[in-house]
């Protein structure tokens, strides 16, 4: 391979561009092209997966590996979920009142709403 077959576009790392190695000539890719994934870890069996943070990865499989390296270096988990942040649909903080108010005035949904004499056993 002659020296014209390599380019160091984007840095010192020479990347082969000979005809046998097809390389896209667009500007160097960066992590900013990688989707953002949200990471959820199950701390131990029997409890829910909990959101722990986010990371960028080129695909789902790499996202799982990166999540393992980044969020479970000390046995923090027995299971990891990753999901593209763009796939999450969330309620908006602006809608907090109309969204959650309906449950606020339904006190009869709580056990403490009902007065039962102290001497009724097992209740």
């Amino acid at each position, binding site marked *: 391979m002659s020296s014209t077959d390599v380019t160091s576009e984007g840095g010192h790392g020479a990347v082969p561009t000979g005809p046998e190695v097809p390389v896209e000539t667009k500007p160097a890719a960066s992590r900013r092209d990688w989707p953002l994934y949200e990471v959820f870890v199950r701390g131990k069996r029997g409890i829910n997966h909990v959101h722990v*943070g986010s990371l960028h990865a080129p695909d789902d499989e790499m996202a799982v590996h990166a999540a393992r390296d980044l969020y479970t*270096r000390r046995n923090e988990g027995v299971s990891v979920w990753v999901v593209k942040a763009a796939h999450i649909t969330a309620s908006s903080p602006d809608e907090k009142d109309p969204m959650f108010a309906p449950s606020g005035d339904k006190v009869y949904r709580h056990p403490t709403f009902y007065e039962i004499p102290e001497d009724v056993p097992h209740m």
Partner: protein
Amino acid sequence: MSAPTLERPGGDSPVDTAALQEHFDATIAAEHRIEPRDWMPEGYRKTLIRQIAQHAHSEIIGMQPEGDWLLAAPSLRRKAILLAKVQDEAGHGMYLYSAAETLGADRADLTDKLIERKQKYSSIFNYPTLTYADVGVIGWLVDGAAICNQVPLCRSSYGPYARAMIRICKEESFHQRQGYELLMTMMRGTAEQRAMVQDAVDRWWWPSLMMFGPPDDDSPNSAQSMAWGIKRHSNDELRQRYVDMSVPQAEFLGVTLPDPELRVDPETGHHRFGTIDWEEFKRVISGQGPANDERIARRRAARDDNAWVIEAATAYARKHGGGRATAELAPESAA
């Protein structure tokens, strides 16, 4: 859940902004956390991005001084410990960039700003690690100072930052203890080893005091940051706490902190200490420290020389449809 029919605070009318500001202020006053999708003043957002980015950069650049000793650590045990610690620093940087992104920053962009010297990192990492004892002293003093700075940030008003800090603080404790244990081991060794530890302490003590930033009367942005709950104690308060913690640790270790004026104030019970060389601090933070150029050059090389890995992974993902193994990793099957 999108609800386009709901009325949302729209436009930039001063009335709307005032109401939002009021809600924000009330959240801060109640010691509740601000979360990513909440409205927040632009100044709060910008200050936080700067603070978190600077912190993230410090973790990433902080890998270098100790990374220099990975190949020279004296045993497999010490190598494994140091490797785990340096890996943690990378992890801390990632948690923090992740938090900065929730504010709308782009992490590749933050890295570019670091390399172009448009954003700063802790001045401490611009000092070289001359001997292996420096690894121990960095763990004990530098990570000790970092813990003093960081523990209060676990209560930062910004949720994602506070949560990142909780993870980081848990791991910093290992960093400090491995450093102190390393130093105890050296202090039980030869006279030469003890001299190495003392030399390292002499070089790192003053720079570690500078980690808390300029004195309170020369820290113009502190008051606003305190009001916003993104700074919890003043620089001088934290520095005093650090000195009070470190003095008995130095005594136990059998080293002398290089400050002839250091003594207990009988009235307050706190340690008084000598004057910090703020001229040196300003020189180092503005790029004139012993290792600034080397640190940035290496970070630039890491970005540029490894760009092909990112390109290769991107190309691979594109070729395989980007969603490889999705079914295999579906939540239901991930026990």
